[in-house]
């Protein structure tokens, strides 16, 4: 019948008609761009060759691939390699090198990965912790990103108008080593390296990692829906009520980004039970939910700021004791298909990745450790989430390996860090989540090795190691009990942000995971300590006393106290905490103390699910460095990676880099 049709055959309905017309446009587009690319190729090739000739040395390799496994402990890796449970890393070690790598002081991801990418100490890149103290207001701020809005004028008189425009700026100083490669005609693909948000321009592609916010502007806040309000308050998430509807279902509102009026834009959700499953309807999506299992990514559209803001989330439903549903929604990730903030360079790189591989987690800290800690999701759901994020990352990484045949490919996987944080107490014996994680990371190493050629160099590294965290050390309480921090009359405890601290009598305060700051006159808003000798003596006094701090059983709590002047140098060293407290294994700065709280006890048990950590004395949690080439890795430092990579590509490391090339002496020239 279709063959017999005459005029109608060219157009059978608008839907199919549009599809057919656009399909032909796609065909034409593909052919035209391919032809243009082929025509331009000789020109770009010549340009690249000219740039490559600028290299100071003969390149040892054509491409360097860096596989960052956040928190991979060299001790555990070595043990599992010896037991034959990490055969690929063992093979890499045998072929090239494997060693412990000194991390930064403190050994915290934003600090260590900043030093990795710049090749300098924190005093030169300005990142000392997750949080940076606002010394004028005594409140914590994010150390790596500054967001705000500024007044800008546009147009010409009389049509000039003033508007407030948001801005996002990266606070990490110095320059990542991949920024240098452009001059030499080498392209880079940088995937999810911490402290790359907002993305900086480079010759290649970059997808930002740690510190990318969610749509609410936080570092990740999940939403928990239930009919009954949870008894305990919880951090890291929001609670919203599920209301019973007439049809026997439930409904609720999922809050998203703030509107200009300061109230959150939200989308409606409705939930229906269907036998042993649930169906959720949100933003025209109908999703079937199996209790205990995470849904696929669901795109949500919020109306805020005069336009549409798109985010993605995943749902998981469970039932409480009364049989009522409890619905968990992950943090509202920025949609990679339509990002509301820049998360990649070029901006459409994230769209490309999402187009090829499907939507993926864009949030900096995507694995929801708070939800597991608070009991909003089970350990199984958390692991499902962590491994699906790992799978997404793996796809992107292999895509980069396929499409970037020369230059640099860097990809950081966070799954290793998150799983160790949450399951450390279960050990790393066979069958434990940590053991499985190490084995899967080894599988990733093996898969990567199989995809590389003879002229590629593979570096497998971690920014720090891991150890236990069983006891919290409330440094502010310690400062209070020792008379360095004073509370206003009648105040016994401070929940957060130093509310109730008498600054006129306070001489020292602690914020972040390891830092102690003096309340220095001229630097802090209400400084009480005179710079110079008084400050110096105070620092020595605090250090001495801290080193004597002991637990009830006589265990020494502090391994070392570092004065900022001793461990940092550079133009931003003065922004560092004055003292960095290096606790022993098992002891870490207390939860509320990190954000400016003052608890009731100096030492108290860590009762949270988060029971593994690396925020201790950095010498106790070294990172891992494995390479497919022989390296002189004795005493390797995380700042050595950048110069080593540059040397491998035939580029002389710039003068400001502090690390050294790890290639043996005879190979350096």
């Amino acid at each position, binding site marked *: 019948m279709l063959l017999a049709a005459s005029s109608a055959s060219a157009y059978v*309905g608008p*839907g199919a008609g549009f599809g057919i017309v656009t*399909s032909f446009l796609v065909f034409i587009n593909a*052919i035209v761009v391919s032809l243009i690319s082929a025509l331009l190729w000789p020109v770009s090739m010549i340009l690249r060759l000219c740039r490559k000739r600028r290299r100071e040395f003969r390149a040892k390799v054509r491409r360097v691939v860096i596989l960052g496994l956040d928190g991979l402990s060299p001790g555990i890796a070595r043990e599992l390699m010896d037991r034959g449970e990490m055969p690929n890393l063992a093979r890499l070690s045998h072929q090239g090198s494997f060693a412990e790598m000194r991390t930064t002081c403190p050994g915290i991801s934003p600090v260590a990965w900043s030093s990795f990418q710049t090749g300098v100490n924190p005093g030169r890149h300005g990142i000392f912790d997750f949080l940076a103290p606002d010394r004028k207001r005594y409140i914590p701020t994010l150390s790596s990103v500054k967001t705000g809005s500024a007044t800008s004028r546009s147009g010409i008189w009389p049509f000039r108008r003033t508007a407030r425009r948001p801005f996002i700026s990266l606070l990490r100083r110095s320059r990542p080593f991949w920024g240098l490669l452009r001059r030499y005609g080498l392209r880079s693909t940088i995937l999810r390296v911490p402290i790359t948000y907002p993305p900086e321009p480079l010759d290649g592609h970059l997808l930002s990692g740690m510190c990318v916010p969610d749509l609410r502007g936080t570092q990740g806040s999940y939403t928990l829906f239930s009919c009954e309000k949870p008894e305990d308050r919880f951090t890291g998430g929001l609670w919203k009520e599920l209301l019973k509807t007439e049809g026997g279902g439930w409904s609720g509102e999922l809050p998203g980004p703030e509107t200009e009026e300061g109230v959150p834009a939200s989308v409606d959700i409705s939930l229906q039970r269907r036998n042993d499953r649930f169906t959720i309807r949100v933003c025209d999506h109908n999703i079937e939910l199996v209790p205990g299992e995470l849904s696929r990514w669901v795109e949500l559209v919020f109306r805020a700021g005069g336009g549409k803001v798109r985010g993605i989330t995943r749902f998981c439903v469970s039932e409480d004791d009364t049989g009522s549903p409890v619905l968990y929604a992950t943090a509202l990730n920025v949609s990679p298909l339509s990002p509301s903030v820049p998360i990649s360079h070029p901006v459409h790189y994230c769209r490309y990745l999402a187009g090829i591989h499907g939507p993926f987690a864009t949030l900096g800290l995507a694995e929801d450790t708070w939800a597991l800690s608070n009991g909003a999701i089970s350990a199984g759901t958390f692991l499902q989430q962590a491994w699906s994020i790992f799978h997404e990352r793996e796809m992107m990484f292999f895509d980069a390996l396929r499409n970037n045949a020369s230059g640099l490919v860097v990809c950081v996987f966070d799954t290793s860090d998150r799983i160790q944080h949450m399951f450390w107490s279960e050990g790393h014996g066979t069958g434990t989540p940590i053991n499985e994680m190490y084995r899967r990371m080894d599988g990733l190493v093996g898969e990567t090795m199989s995809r590389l050629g003879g002229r590629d160099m593979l570096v497998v590294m971690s920014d720090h190691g891991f150890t236990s965290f069983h006891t919290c050390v409330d440094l502010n309480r310690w400062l209070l009990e020792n008379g360095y921090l004073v509370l206003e009359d009648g105040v016994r405890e401070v929940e957060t942000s130093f509310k109730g601290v008498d600054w006129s009598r306070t001489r020292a305060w602690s914020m972040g995971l390891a830092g102690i700051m003096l309340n220095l006159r001229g630097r802090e808003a209400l400084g009480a300590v005179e710079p110079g000798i008084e400050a110096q003596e105070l620092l020595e006094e605090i250090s001495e006393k801290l080193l004597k701090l002991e637990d009830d059983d006589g265990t020494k709590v502090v391994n070392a106290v570092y004065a900022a002047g001793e461990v940092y140098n550079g133009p931003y060293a003065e922004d560092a905490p004055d003292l960095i407290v290096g606790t022993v294994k098992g002891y870490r700065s207390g939860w509320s103390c990190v954000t400016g709280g003052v608890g009731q006890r100096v030492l108290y048990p860590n009762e949270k699910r988060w029971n593994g950590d690396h925020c201790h004395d950095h010498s106790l949690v070294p990172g891992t460095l494995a390479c497919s080439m022989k390296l002189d890795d004795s005493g390797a430092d995380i700042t050595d990676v950048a110069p080593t990579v540059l040397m491998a590509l035939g580029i002389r490391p710039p003068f400001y880099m502090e690390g050294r090339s790890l290639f043996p002496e005879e190979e350096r020239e």
Partner: protein
Amino acid sequence: MGPASASLNALFDALLYPLGGLPAFWGLLLVSLLSGIGMIAVFKAVSDQERIADLRRRMGGEILGILLHVSSPGTVLRFAGRLIRSNTVYLSCLLKPLLVMALPFMLVWGQLEARYGAEGMEEQVPVTVTVQFRDELPAREDMLVQLTGAGLVPPLVMVQALDQVSFRVVAESRADAELLVNGTAAGIGRTGEWNGSRVLRGFDAAPSLWRLFTPHVQVVRRVSGGPDSGWYSLEGRDYSIFGWHWSWTAVFLVFSMLSALAGARFLRVRI
């Protein structure tokens, strides 16, 4: 064939009757807009929307892949290949809605063609009628042509080689006329006074299934010794929009597409 064809015509007569008082352009415009929305709704119901969305996303990624790796011809070619493959899969996804919609679309198309495609006979404007005989032409003296509501304009041209007879007729009024050739009776021009009624542009005494899609060709009773079929040279209707001359197909395609686009947005249809 006759009853099916007659039922279909009656159905469309009833459906389009409310628009009969409107000028032909406005009637056609409304029908086009409703058809666009109707077809996009059917497309949504029949197509695999999830799959189409997935393929569109993937093709978008592959186009961006070409743009992002434009300096690497090998990668560009790989993405171009993948794009063509995805596109082929996408086209195969359109096959089901295409097949489902083909029959109703062709029926609608034929009915609109019959009702809005041509004017009826104009007064004093001659229309050429060509009549086809199956085997052999009757002798000139055996040829009997009678008209009601129109006058015959000689000569009667007989083409022996093609077994055809041609002559001209002139309408006496704008009302429908009837033709009788050797016992076979057929209408010419409008079948009703209202806009949107069928305009007969031929007849067929040996109809096939295909005649369901061409309602402007009247299905008539076969008479021994009578002609097989015939057709009339009626002028196509001209629709003037902002001084531009549009055929009914242009009006229908453009406005049904526009309404389909709006409907797709409103109904959130992925196409």
